[in-house]
């Protein structure tokens, strides 16, 4: 096995690292520790450097980079605690989905605009009654006699909908067939009449959203993929979502912050033992994530490995933040940038439930691994 990066990849890593050193200002970090995760100015800079949609072909506004390159980018950005904001929602959930199952017209229309940061996107899947069992969704898209569709329903836990220009919405187009059939995907103008976005505040200090579609008129061209055959594409998007590495770099950052703190303070040996265990796990996850990206570059769909990476890195968010607070002691509970290690352990501990549930709960990840990795039967 060869763990080395090509000289081009090393140069790219250095470039991104230098970009972060220059552009990820304290202001950006403070914003992340307080409430807002999206920085429009920074997002524009990402676009100017060609980092948005870098893995898409040039004719679609990309740079033709690999998934390993994407992973390098994510690792550097998250180690720097950069405010990536709407990046993953726009690039991975919607943009990547367009590259896989969008029409050529849709790709040409949207991908270059996403890459230029002219629009950001959100992924509207979950509903109040359809969480892990996403195929139970009841949002309805009714086909109109003159062509096009009318959309009615409610979505929930929609990250970034309040900033999004384009929504990728799953809706039922045929209620008379089993629930995994009769679902279609649509590209929806989030500023269209009938679209209402309401915040749903989280303990992280920032909000996800509820989105209401009240008789939203959609042109026929809004249909993404084939009518009634959206479910397989939803699974593709969920896989893309699980493969997105944003966590390992942050775990590495947290480890280094906590280790530096521990080196300067008196810390119980049992805590140092836990710190050592975490070091091993984070290292392992780092390479597991690169392996997933490398397999994707080979045209494979490593769903079980991707779920392993997603599941364990999310769990380590909890473990590393909890250990940070345990090592710091009572002051580890303090919020804000003046707290020990900039309040990052406390912030991550409070936000860890988002990582545990986002992109499919831990239970769903375990089901994927059990069935597709270990070959165990469905319930």
């Amino acid at each position: 096995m060869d763990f080395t990066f090509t000289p081009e990849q090393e140069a790219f890593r250095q470039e991104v690292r230098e970009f972060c050193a220059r552009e990820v200002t304290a202001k950006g970090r403070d914003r992340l520790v307080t409430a807002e995760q999206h920085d429009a100015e920074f997002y524009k800079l990402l676009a100017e450097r060609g980092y948005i949609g870098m893995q898409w072909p040039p004719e679609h506004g990309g740079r033709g980079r690999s998934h390993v390159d994407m992973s390098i980018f994510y690792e550097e950005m998250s180690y720097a605690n950069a405010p990536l904001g709407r990046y993953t929602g726009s690039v991975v959930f919607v943009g990547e989905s367009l590259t896989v199952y969008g029409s050529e017209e849709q790709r040409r229309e949207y991908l270059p605009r996403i890459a230029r940061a002219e629009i950001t996107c959100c992924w509207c899947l979950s509903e109040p009654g359809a969480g892990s069992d996403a195929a139970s969704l009841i949002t309805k898209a009714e086909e109109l006699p003159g062509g096009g569709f009318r959309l009615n329903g409610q979505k929930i836990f929609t990250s970034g909908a309040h900033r999004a220009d384009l929504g990728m919405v799953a809706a039922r187009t045929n209620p008379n067939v089993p629930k995994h059939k009769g679902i279609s995907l649509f590209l929806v103008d989030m500023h269209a009449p009938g679209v209402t976005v309401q915040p749903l505040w989280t303990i992280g200090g920032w909000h996800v959203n509820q989105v209401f579609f009240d008789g939203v008129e959609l042109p026929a061209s809004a249909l993404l993929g084939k009518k009634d055959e959206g479910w397989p594409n939803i699974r593709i998007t969920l896989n893309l979502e699980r493969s997105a590495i944003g966590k390992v770099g942050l775990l590495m950052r947290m480890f280094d912050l906590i280790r530096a703190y521990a080196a300067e303070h008196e810390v119980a040996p049992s805590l140092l033992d836990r710190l050592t265990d975490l070091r091993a796990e984070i290292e392992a996850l780092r390479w597991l994530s690169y392996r997933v990206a490398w397999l994707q570059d080979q045209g494979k769909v490593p769903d079980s490995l991707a779920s392993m990476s997603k599941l364990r890195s999310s769990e380590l968010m909890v473990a590393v933040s909890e250990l940070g607070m345990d090592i710091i002691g009572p002051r580890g509970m303090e919020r804000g940038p003046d707290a020990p290690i900039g309040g990052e352990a406390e912030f991550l501990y409070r936000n860890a439930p988002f990582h545990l549930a986002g992109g499919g709960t831990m239970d769903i990840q375990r089901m994927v691994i059990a069935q597709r990795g270990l070959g165990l039967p469905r319930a």
Partner: protein
Amino acid sequence: MDFALTTEERALAEALSQNLARVCSTACIRAWEAEQVSFDDAFWAAISEGGFLEAGLPWGDAPSFGMLTQLEEVAGRFLAPPVLSWHSAFAALLLGERLAGELVAPVPPGRAQLTLDGGRLSGEAGGVLFLDRARRVLALAHGSAALVDTSAVSATLVQTQSLVPQWSVIFEDAPAEVLPAPGCEQALARLRTSLAAWATGAGAQAIELASAYARERVQFDHPIGSYQSVQNRLVDAAIQVEQARMLVYRAAALIDAHDPQAEAMSWLARRHAGKAFVQASRAGLLTFGGYGFTVDFDIQLYFRRAKEAQLGFEPRVPWALAPAFRS
């Protein structure tokens, strides 16, 4: 970056797997336990004549150390005695070409209190392997490697949880062939990594045995593997094993590249792989329910070896060897 095995590597690993299926079945393992022998002639012939001992040797054009860890992972699946680790990864680096295929009985470095004075070795050591198959004992003392004829030591067979024969050895002013061991730290890094590969393979096989059983065993009218409580235990263990695999091969790649980070990575790999094997064997055992506790099912062979593999031959990793990712 390339996480795939080459055609040659796959062929060598497959050849070892086929050989071990023949000479190291669980029936063989059980027989060796009952007879309290390390292994038999057929096993040694298959390993030594099959060219597997040459992998990772630091001379000639032997396959890489990474290949050795691949092979030792295969060996771990069969619970084969870890001769590749102790012979090819460790002893060969200390003794060089003079070893020439001879299996020595290694003294685990963390389990000995020895003094070496003027070519005479004194002291005690525990956990010595392969004493029934070796002519000489290999010990590290005062930065040197000492070879002592087995007839010059007093040895007692010690029964442990694994029922793998191990000896407690006393050296009483025993004459020793003393050799400088400048590559001692490197040899230990190779040994840790290789044993971690063995534990990774053993953990992976424990999960496979349990998964196969969970697909077949029906309770409440359904295969037990369809129940999430059963699935989740195996999944969590499988993740740990997969992580261990990445650490092992990362450490092996650093060793092959003579990278200074190799030592720290070898500690982390061994620590995590031992933990993963314990978790996997326990998850596996529990999947078999009451049958797992009986000697009739093979999963107990894995369970009884896991803790021993985790505790290993030296103390737990010092936390200072868990370096920062970036300074």
